[in-house]
């Protein structure tokens, strides 16, 4: 049996007094997952909880031994997240952010430089993000999600905004990282092309819970 990459135990999340997530238990083995759900179902909240971006009740364990509660730093090293609509301080350059991620998360700089070139980010990486289009911002946030040595990468709506060429590069990256054992959890309202990615499973967010099909 494959090892569990991520396990959620009694994870609950509320906004004020309104519960939005109540997941008793969920365990995922390595692979590529499509996280589905209607608008407002809690997909992004679920991803932010998994990424350790927002507080929640319960516990998430990565690789069977890295706990979100007991090992917060190691936990953040193993999980990366790219937002659907990334927002960064206007005065920062793409390079500022990239260096910050590489300095904290680590990883192979040369590999990231190669991805940056493939996505065409190297052309504008020294400019402040205030001058970026939504597509350029999206590409940058996707690149940041591949920094370090993650075991799980969460991609929130990665298929929107970017151009066809970048989409092809992204599919290539997901395939190659997945082959190296990295797990992906992708939200998308667009169907994921089965010719491009072989899905391990589909996660459905509904009624505050996540079910694996």
């Amino acid at each position, binding site marked *: 049996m494959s090892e569990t990459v991520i396990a959620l135990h009694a994870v609950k999340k509320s*906004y*004020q007094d309104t519960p939005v997530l109540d997941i008793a238990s969920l365990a995922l083995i390595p692979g590529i997952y499509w996280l589905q759900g209607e608008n407002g179902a809690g997909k992004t909240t679920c991803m932010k909880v998994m*990424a*350790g*971006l*927002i*507080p929640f009740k319960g516990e998430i364990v990565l690789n069977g031994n890295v706990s979100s509660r007991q090992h*917060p*730093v*190691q*936990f*953040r*090293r193993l*999980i*990366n*997240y790219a*937002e659907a609509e*990334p*927002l*960064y*301080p*206007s*005065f*920062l*350059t793409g*390079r*500022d*952010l990239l*260096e*910050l*991620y590489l300095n*904290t*998360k680590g990883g192979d700089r040369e590999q990231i430089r190669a991805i940056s070139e493939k996505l065409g980010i190297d052309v504008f990486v*020294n*400019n*402040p993000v*205030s*001058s970026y289009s939504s597509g350029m911002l999206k590409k940058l946030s996707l690149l*940041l999600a591949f920094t*370090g040595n993650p075991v799980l990468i969460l991609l929130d709506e990665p298929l929107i905004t970017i151009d066809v060429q970048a989409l092809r590069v992204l599919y290539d990256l997901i395939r190659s990282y997945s082959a190296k054992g990295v797990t992906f959890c992708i939200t998308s309202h667009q169907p994921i092309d089965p010719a491009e990615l072989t899905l391990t499973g589909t996660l459905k967010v509904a009624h505050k819970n996540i079910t694996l099909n």
Partner: protein
Amino acid sequence: MRTTIQILQKIFTQRFYIQNTGFFLVLFYLLFGVVDGGNLISYHTSLMLGFLGSYTFLLIVLLLWGLYALKCVGFILKTFQTPGYDFLYPTMGSIPKATRGRIWLLLHMAIYMPVLVYAGIALGVAVTHGFYLPAVIIVVFNVAMCIWPLLVYERKLNHPDVLFFTGHLQRWLNRHFTKPPLLFFLYELFTNYPRRIFSVKLFSAGVLWLTFFLLGQMEFDLRGLQLGIILSVLLHMQLMLHHRSFDDSYLNFVQQLPVPLWKHYLRVMGIYFLLFVPEMVMITINAKTSLPGLLTCFAVAVSLLVLFRCLLYFSKVDAEIHLRYVLIISFVVLFMILGKYEWPAVLLLQTASAIIFLAKYRTYEPLPKMES
């Protein structure tokens, strides 16, 4: 039918004077309201003769005019960056270059007009009284102040993506250096809210200046200086609220970085230490105290700043509640200082802020904005 220049005057000139009504009211009061009406002409003639007869005074006047010219340039560039004004690029870009040059000149002169009028009168006085060299300096300076902005406007039109603060130097810095997280908030203030940081620092310097002035009337007492420092720290409150809002809106991604809590805490300490550096310099120069005395003052100031910021890691603490707690803490610290318990106060402040930060940083979540 309206001409192009009429429409552009409406966009630039009218908006400039409307937006700066307060500024001009204060300026007019200072220039014309503080003197008895009967003595107004002789007052201004004396003022003009004063700066025409002294090159140091003239330099100060030119500096003020130069600052006003910068304000004009900043306004026009900011208009181009304001959402909804994107149409200026294709429309003004379609005007023949020579015509556009004349339009730039008219627009700039229209908002630089107050200086031109005053400088024109001063020129008349200079010629009448035989101050020919100052007259030439005034003419050359004002011609320069009307010419160089046109080049900046033209450049802005051709490089829409270049912001006011991102010139060659900024782009060179961007290529060769990366900004550490410690400086993110300071960059935010200096690039997006320069007025806010400068006004806080101006008032803070004013409070400290007043403190030193009052302390000069009596025997120097470190406790008196520390009272001034507490007031100066209180003036930074709006920056702390801004800091929280900036973190909430833009630095969400920092939470996801694998950085230990103590490093995040050191970053917050560092931000407020750097913010208070100008005051520290001012205190070091003016305070008649020893090094331990200075260190005590700085430790009190930074500890207060950090604790006041940490209070905002309680999601439900809004500006009003924050003010209440800040004032209570300030009073307690003030009494401890009066009782010469400065270092115990610092220890308490540091312990409280560290406990709050370590307990709340990972669990902090901004409250959703309420619909009005």
